[in-house]
């Protein structure tokens, strides 16, 4: 059991070390990547890429404006 506890301590040290090392390297990697991309490919900001629903929305808007138009026409005819 004593052996088990000591291997637990060892695992803890190695594990936390690995986690920190990995995520620290990831920080460096992200910073380099962002710097490179912002410098060489400034491009478009994220979160604005055209999703599939976009087309549907346009369709809906078309349908709505058609409906509105229709409505107005009928309404005016009555007047």
């Amino acid at each position: 059991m004593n052996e088990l506890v000591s291997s637990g301590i060892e695992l803890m040290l190695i594990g936390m070390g690995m986690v920190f090392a990995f995520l620290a390297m990831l920080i460096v990697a992200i910073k380099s990547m962002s710097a490179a991309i912002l410098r060489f490919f400034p491009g478009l900001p994220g979160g604005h890429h055209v999703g599939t629903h976009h087309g549907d929305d346009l369709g809906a808007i078309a349908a709505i404006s058609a409906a509105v138009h229709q409505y107005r026409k009928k309404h005016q005819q009555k007047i």
Partner: protein
Amino acid sequence: MENLSLLWESTGLYNITGPQMIMMSVGFLLLFLAIKKGFEPLLLLPIGFGAILSNIPVAGMTEEGGVLYYMYGGIKSGMFPLLIFLGVGAMTDFGPMLANPKTLLLGAAAQFGIFGTLFGALALNAVPGMDFNLKQAAAIAIIGGADGPTAIYVASKLAPELLGAIAVAAYSYMALVPLIQPPIMRALTTEEERKIEMQQLRTVTQTEKIVFPLMLVTLTAFLLPSAAPLVGMFCMGNLMNASGVVDRLSKTAQNELINIVTIFLGLSVGSKLSADAFLTLETLGILGLGAIAFSIGTASGVLMAKVMNRFSSTPINPLIGAAGVSAVPMAARVANKVGQESNPYNFLLMHAMGPNVAGVIGSAVAAGVLLSLVR
């Protein structure tokens, strides 16, 4: 007449054992928590129902030929947790983390919840009646990752006999995050610290969001390949979403596929809630250790943020460190809420999303370490 007695002998009343009745009650309790208390219902409802079904005598749904037996194959092969991770990856926005990469360290610190618990589980062997070997201790410790699929994946590889208890503990404590975390967060921070407002995050370009999952999977491949299945599927889902070129696949991964797999995963986990595996002193140990794991993770994240605040040029509100345990997005919401108690105009949610998703990566890395070192 003979048939009548045959019928009686085939009833559940004739066959049911006490432990089975208790396990069915556990199933009902999980359903109650899921439905009435809102505890992670997407998982705990199927798990609870699976617990009931798998403890019905005679029906033999978990024996070879039974439907739950076959479903469990999806956990044994790793397929279910990895497909859930694919969908979760597709739902995850790494934007806030990429805008403020140093929050990754908070996601790293919170993993002390895992390794501290591992040590605790081994120390618990001193208690008579508790007997966890290293594999079991590692599987229990991963509860501290606050990440259901990761916990299920690791437990199915290292200690499948504890899978039921570990999954139940993991999802229950995730649901309890709004209760477990705030007292710890308040105890470890001053009113002044909780009021700290953070700089607005910059907008992250789509290119960065596309390159990041590729970078992450590469780093994993080179440094910690045992984490590659988890991190890889997560990155693939994330890339499907970030790239914007396979929206139909990304949407299916986030909706129908993850829903179908969730039903199957829940039932399969439930099928491991059999009396002989669950009704042991060890389960109490697991439940206790799970609470400790979350507490340690929360504390480590907050303390790490306080340390970083000393060295950082831009201020960090230590509350967002608690989000490093993952439990996405609950822990981030908790950080936001506790922050607003001290300063109602302090919107920490986006800032907390950074450590929150970093915690997912951190747990997967920790899982990789355990999978490669514990044999």
